[in-house]
């Protein structure tokens, strides 16, 4: 892609300054010439799907906001704590006005007077950049009591979390924003009906918001020309692990494959010297691990799902053949044990037990029967947890067992010949 829609700072240096970014033409157009319902219709027609993982259509979500109960809130999810994900950070750090403008349009469309950008606590330096950009937008009259001189009010606040992956889950995020422990809520009701302070609330990912100005400026048809029919538009892919050039790369959904992303000249430029692709985690820690068999699968929601995993937030962790997969799955399990919020027993106890078993297996203290039990315990957790984290935690176990059972068995104390773990 030569012309970026999202990572526009790569074409236009200093776009974090309002004077370079421009005059919020999309927000102006929406507020001064469109009804809120028209804005929702355009976003619906564009087919924009949420970029936070689940891929739910943004315009449809906005249309769920009831019109008889106020105030409404928009919360922007910049918690970005999924291992392997670092796209929202780049967007906020280098192209903050586009995120701000998109979220202001969402506020106008849904009748919200206040927007909260929830950033993970470790994003303190990024919050400074966002705050500066928001201050500029206020000074220019693009935010505040009379946006573009109309009587539309949009206030915007940056709120820092304090270190907890679970706060990326939308109902936990709302709890956290209310000053409580970030534990998921029982649903329904969904945030659109009872969200922040039990009021109607939109929750969208930061990158989702960054798509909105383009849609308003250029129309749904122009947007739909990018990507595929079911997965339209551009996407930022986070590439990490054993590639020559890790980083964020923007491409149209479904127009590149895993192979393109890893080996393409304008993308990862191939594997590190002498290494080959052994496994891929397409959605950070939170999706099934796949093998090099998927290399020619296009990167859109449907294709990756058909290949046995999920596109999620498109955080591709590439593991090469010098690493042991039991070690890798154990790392992921450590993450989930650490981040389980403790609210429900299957997840709290299950992740604790699973991590312990991984340590035992890696230390050569487990038997073949223990490895079998590993899969059984993970299977028992499926469907019994309050929020998706508990289920996410099982997928690295089950998928690595499926593809790499031999590596597990080789570590068992009663296996024919134990093989030491490589790191």
């Amino acid at each position: 892609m030569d012309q970026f829609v999202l990572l526009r700072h790569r074409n236009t240096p200093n776009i974090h300054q309002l004077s370079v970014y421009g005059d919020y033409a999309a927000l102006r157009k929406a507020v001064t010439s469109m009804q809120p319902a028209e804005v929702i219709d355009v976003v619906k027609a564009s087919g924009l799907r949420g970029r936070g993982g689940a891929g739910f259509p943004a315009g449809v979500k906005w249309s769920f906001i009831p019109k008889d109960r106020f105030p409404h809130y928009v919360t922007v999810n910049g918690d970005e704590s999924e291992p392997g994900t670092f796209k929202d950070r780049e967007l906020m750090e280098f192209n903050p006005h586009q995120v701000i403008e998109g979220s202001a349009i969402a506020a106008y469309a849904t009748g919200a007077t206040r927007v909260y950008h929830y950033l993970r606590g470790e994003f303190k330096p990024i919050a400074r950049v966002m705050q500066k950009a928001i201050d500029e937008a206020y000074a220019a009259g693009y935010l505040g009591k009379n946006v573009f001189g109309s009587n539309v009010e949009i206030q915007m606040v940056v709120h820092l979390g304090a270190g907890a992956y679970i706060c990326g889950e939308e109902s936990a995020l709302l709890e956290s924003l209310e000053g409580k422990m970030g534990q998921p809520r029982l649903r329904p009701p969904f945030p659109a009906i009872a969200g922040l302070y039990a009021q109607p609330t939109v929750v969208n990912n930061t990158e989702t918001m960054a798509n909105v100005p383009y849609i308003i400026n250029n129309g749904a048809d122009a947007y739909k020309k990018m990507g595929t029919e079911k997965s339209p538009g551009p996407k930022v892919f986070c590439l990490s692990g054993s590639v020559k050039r890790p980083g964020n790369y923007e491409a149209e959904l479904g127009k590149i494959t895993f192979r393109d992303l890893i080996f393409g000249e304008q993308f990862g430029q191939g594997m590190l010297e002498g290494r080959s692709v052994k496994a891929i985690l397409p959605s950070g820690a939170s999706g099934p691990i796949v093998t090099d068999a998927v290399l020619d699968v296009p990167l859109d929601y449907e294709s990756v799902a058909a290949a046995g995993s999920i596109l999620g937030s498109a955080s591709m962790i590439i593991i090469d053949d010098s690493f042991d997969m039991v070690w890798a799955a154990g790392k992921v399990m450590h993450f989930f044990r650490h981040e389980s919020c403790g609210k429900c027993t299957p997840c709290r106890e299950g992740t604790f037990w699973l991590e312990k078993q991984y340590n035992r297996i890696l230390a050569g203290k487990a038997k073949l029967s223990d490895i079998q039990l590993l899969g059984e315990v993970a299977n028992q957790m499926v469907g019994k947890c309050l929020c998706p984290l508990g289920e996410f935690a099982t997928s690295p176990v089950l998928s690595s067992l499926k593809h790499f059972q031999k590596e597990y068995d080789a570590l068992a104390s009663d296996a024919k010949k134990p093989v030491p773990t490589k790191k």
Partner: protein
Amino acid sequence: MNKLFDKYQTEVDQILDKYPSDRKRSAVLPLLYIAQQEYGYCTPDAISDVAEIAGVSSTEVESVVGFYTLFYDHPTGKHVVQICNDLPCALRGSDKFLDHACAKLKLDKHHVEHGGATTEDGSITLESVVCLAACDKAPMMQVDLEYHERLTNEQFDQIIDGLKK
């Protein structure tokens, strides 16, 4: 007496302004950041100051402190250094980098990996943490929540020596 309120009145007012006036509880996290800076960690006084301003009980603030990793209910070193050793960073040598850091600071890696450890002179707390959204720039760390990325062992030493001055 509310030391936090007396000393940081402007900041506290600015924070409270960000939330609806009947939703002061939302200020708990931002207030805890100030309180922790003022008191060194989330002491009982810090917690009761925050509780009073936000209009909730100290017990509720305590549970918040316990829930989030960036709040400490015990003293830490003057600087907190967090090295990421999650999967993507570990695929790029963060484990060896962490080894070096432990050696340089004379800290036991097991402690660093299980809740963190503090140098004898009390200057630095080192923690091994999960993903910090900088996986393409490993090995990396945050020092008092500021990013330091694509680090060599030598750069680590320089940064640490700078902190100890």
